[in-house]
């Protein structure tokens, strides 16, 4: 493929290792292709075409990467925290310098609008800046002891080699949020990015290299066989910790696999976010927030509102406000000017969304707008959809749709809506809209989720702890807690007798 049209939109082709195809993996400080010569294609869901090919590494090559990371760890664990902070800070700056290219490529491989991609690139960069500061704050403690000549000290040390498995929906931020913490802690790592969106990972590795990350500290292995490589990361005894963001089902599998070597785990899994609009909510603001929260990334985020509960007294009014806003969406190719929402990541994703919509319509919901694939644009485009009269027996009430479908349920009492909001095995994000302070605290505390937005549709800030409860997983990313996930606490009792 010589000079494909899309490549002219990117300034620095080398950033994505695309001077020559296939793009390569990054192991031990070198850019390498699979010894098998196998490659896999990366698609542009917006134009239904292949973007480029990437090397398809074998499991043996992941194993080698783990061994290289293990060797590098013996040195990196003793690196000065200032060095780590400096590398993270340089990497942060390089991401911002290359933000245009990163955003463009992200839209190309993921489909999200350029505005969404630009937002994510900044969000991703911010994690590195945050952890540059956190690297300097790995404080231990000193404690009183019950015996006068004893001193108790606790120190924190890096856990070791980390396996990092990331999804396609935030192809940059999911990497930096984990890698930034791991690097700051003094760990080395092997990253397995999603096969749908490897170029964001490749670019991040390139920039890490340019930022001066020592060879072998960050290793990034591209492949098209997630199950095999996942199994290697979860069972290889040299890996002490696995951090995963993805579906709940895969999370359970990885956990079981990790038990044979008792690895430390962080899991950030699926959600089924309730978005509750009370009678006294500021409806305009709630509608604005819903649009952002529900349709960001075309609904393909784990914290997307999945079930919208609206008090019966304001239901009709609120539905109108939502409909008006959705009508103004510009569905289209992510790179095109004025487009607000792009395609979904794949045909498989579209299929699931259609399944949810059809099921809802069969069970009595009505689609005020949308409800079908926009074939005229391409097989991955789904019309933004507003469903009213949603009911609890619909798939959309029980499963994450992961698409641009807004299902609105009616409720009458706080007790009722909390019961329904909490009757799900997962618990990642939840949102509530009310002006009453007592209600705000009551409902926020009662929602069985890890993150609550009160009068806002945003729960992701680098500073705030990100993570779920129940079957949405455990561990917290970002915030002052994020780095702890990659540290072991050692308690020392010293006698100065």
């Amino acid at each position, binding site marked *: 493929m010589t000079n494909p049209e899309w490549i002219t939109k990117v300034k620095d082709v080398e950033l994505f290792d695309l001077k020559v195809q296939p793009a390569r993996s990054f192991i031990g400080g070198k850019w390498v292709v699979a010894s098998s010569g196998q490659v896999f294609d990366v698609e542009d869901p917006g134009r239904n075409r292949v973007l480029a090919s990437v090397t398809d590494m074998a499991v043996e090559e992941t194993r080698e990467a783990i061994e290289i990371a293990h060797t590098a760890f013996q040195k990196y664990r003793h690196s000065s925290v200032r060095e780590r902070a400096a590398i993270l800070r340089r990497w942060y700056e390089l991401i911002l310098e290359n933000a245009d290219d990163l955003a463009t490529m992200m839209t190309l491989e993921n489909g999200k609008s350029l505005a969404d991609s630009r937002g994510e690139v900044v969000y991703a960069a*911010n994690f590195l800046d945050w952890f540059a500061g956190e690297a300097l704050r790995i404080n231990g*403690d000193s*404690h*009183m*002891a*019950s*015996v006068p000549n*004893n001193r*108790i000290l*606790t*120190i924190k040390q890096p*856990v070791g080699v980390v396996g990092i498995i990331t999804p396609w929906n935030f192809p940059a931020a999911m990497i930096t949020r984990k890698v930034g913490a791991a690097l700051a802690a003094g760990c080395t790592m092997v990253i397995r990015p999603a096969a749908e969106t490897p170029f964001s990972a490749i670019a991040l590795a390139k920039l890490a290299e340019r930022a001066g990350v020592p060879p072998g500290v960050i290793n990034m292995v591209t492949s098209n066989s997630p199950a095999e490589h996942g199994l290697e990361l979860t069972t290889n*005894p040299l890996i*002490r910790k696995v951090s995963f963001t993805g579906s*709940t089902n895969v*999370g*359970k599998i990885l*956990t*079981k696999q990790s*038990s*044979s*070597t*008792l690895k430390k785990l962080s899991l950030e*899994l699926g959600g089924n976010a309730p978005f509750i609009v009370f009678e006294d909510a500021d409806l305009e603001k709630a509608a604005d927030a819903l649009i952002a929260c529900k349709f960001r990334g075309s609904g393909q985020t784990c914290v997307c509102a999945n079930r919208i509960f609206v008090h019966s007294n304001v239901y009709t009014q609120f539905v109108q406000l939502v409909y008006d806003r959705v009508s103004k969406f510009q569905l289209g190719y992510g790179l095109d000017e004025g487009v607000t929402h792009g395609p979904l990541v794949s045909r498989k994703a579209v299929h699931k969304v259609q399944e949810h919509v059809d099921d809802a319509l069969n069970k009595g919901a009505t689609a005020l707008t949308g409800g079908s694939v926009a074939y005229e644009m391409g097989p991955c485009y789904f019309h933004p959809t507003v469903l009213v009269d949603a009911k609890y027996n619909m798939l959309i009430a029980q499963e994450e749709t992961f698409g641009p479908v807004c299902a609105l349920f009616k409720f009458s009492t706080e007790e009722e809506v909390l019961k329904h909001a909490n009757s799900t*095995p997962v618990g990642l994000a939840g949102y509530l809209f009310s002006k009453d302070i007592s209600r*705000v605290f009551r409902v*926020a*505390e009662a929602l069985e*989720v*890890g*993150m*609550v*937005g*009160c*009068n*806002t549709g*945003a*729960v992701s*800030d680098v*500073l*705030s*702890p990100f993570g779920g*409860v*129940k*079957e*949405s*997983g*455990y561990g917290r990313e970002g*915030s*002052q*807690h994020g780095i702890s996930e990659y540290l072991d*606490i*050692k*308690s*020392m*009792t*010293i*006698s*100065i*007798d």
Partner: protein
Amino acid sequence: MSSTAALFHRPELFGLDQPVTPSVVDGKWFTSNSKKSFSVENPANTQEIGKVTDMTVDETKKSIEAAANGFKAYKNTTHVQRSEMLTRWATLMEENKEDLVKMLTLENGKPLSHADMEVSTSIGYIKWYAGEAVRVFGDIAPSSLQMNNFIMSVKQPVGISGLITPWNFPSAMITRKGGAALAAGCSIVIMPATSTPYSCLGLVKLAQEAGFPNGVINVITTSNVSEHGKELTTNPLIRKISFTGSTNVGKILMGQSASTVKKVSMELGGNAPFIVFPDFPIDQAVDSLCNIKFFSAGEVCVCPNRVYLHKDIYEEFTKKLLEKVKTIKVGDGLDPSTGLGPLISKQGCDKMASHIEDSVAKGAKLLAGGKRITDKGGYFYEPTVLANLNHDMIVACEETFGPLISLFQFENVDQVLERANDTEVGLAGYVFSKDVSTLVHVAKELEVGLVGANIELVDEPFMSFGGIKQSGFGKEAGRHGVEEFMIIKEVNLKTH
């Protein structure tokens, strides 16, 4: 009244006023519909202490439901209320200490002095957690998003927690886990080891007297911990599992917990190195070693499993050690002059024998002990010292869990660190040196969660207890203990 019951001020504390000791679910003491019971043996003489009710899996399911019900109210208690209940519990434990200590010795075998230390530590944990309960802080992050924002983090109890505890510390493991869970606002279902249920039952009775509401603390007594353990790890109502026990069982429980994405804490086996450098007073090092090695008959996860002596002091240390070992009196734990009680079971003795046999066959020298003691009627083993060990022997990689001192030699600090760290587990490690650089270097480089530096103590309520590598994850006691039973909830509050 049975002769066992007659030993106690309050035999009803352990259900010894009844033919079969009942368990407790939802605040009610009951015997199982199975009508079955299992016998609890005194390892010092193999005599029966009593019979305990053998619950069915169905009853375990109901206990989990009772805990779920109890949680609804308990999670809404204030931290002050929980702190006060914990304080009352500690007071009741103090008042009933003699009975608790005696029962511990009866069912586990450890000498009264060791049982006394354990119950004191147990009380210490509850007092600690009474203080921790009121120190669960969330925070407010500076907001980078917008002006009218509070980004709050609050901590909330994780929910119903399953606690699976071992026989080697039948009191302290209950309080070290239970106290943290209760401080956090969780309700609990405890499954004590089949061989040592009485300490747990006594503690829970006192907790009930302390005012913990029905359903908040429930106990599963069973002869089949594997079956009931599976219920705990797979029942979706349970959100957290905390286990102390063997590494192998830990792996199984973690795998079982995956299907409902439970939070898990594991405190598993160790292979503790005990390293003595030549600049440390030998007598003091010998005393420290004997204190920790024979404490609770060496059946302790932080027990030194491999003793590394610098070659320059090897001879003298060994000589002084043997003199000290000669003075250790083996006997029934209830005899106040006993320094070393029985092991918990025949299997414990078998493991000692096989470790000794394997080492000797591969060239180790038996310097003291080496044999089972068969004339006392229980599971007694001689305090044993083996010398000239190397890393081909089983003792180098497996916990002996008995009164066996295995002596290795080393030449320099790099060598001993490499050998000490050449193991899959990492719970405790000990280093003795007067030189500050050596001491700090070794303490930092040992791949363990707990270091004793110039001291054999690694366990106080104020410090975080737990291992790394395949010794598990999660911390108990210290400032992190209560957190294990909590979740962090971010509340992003926008005004205007």
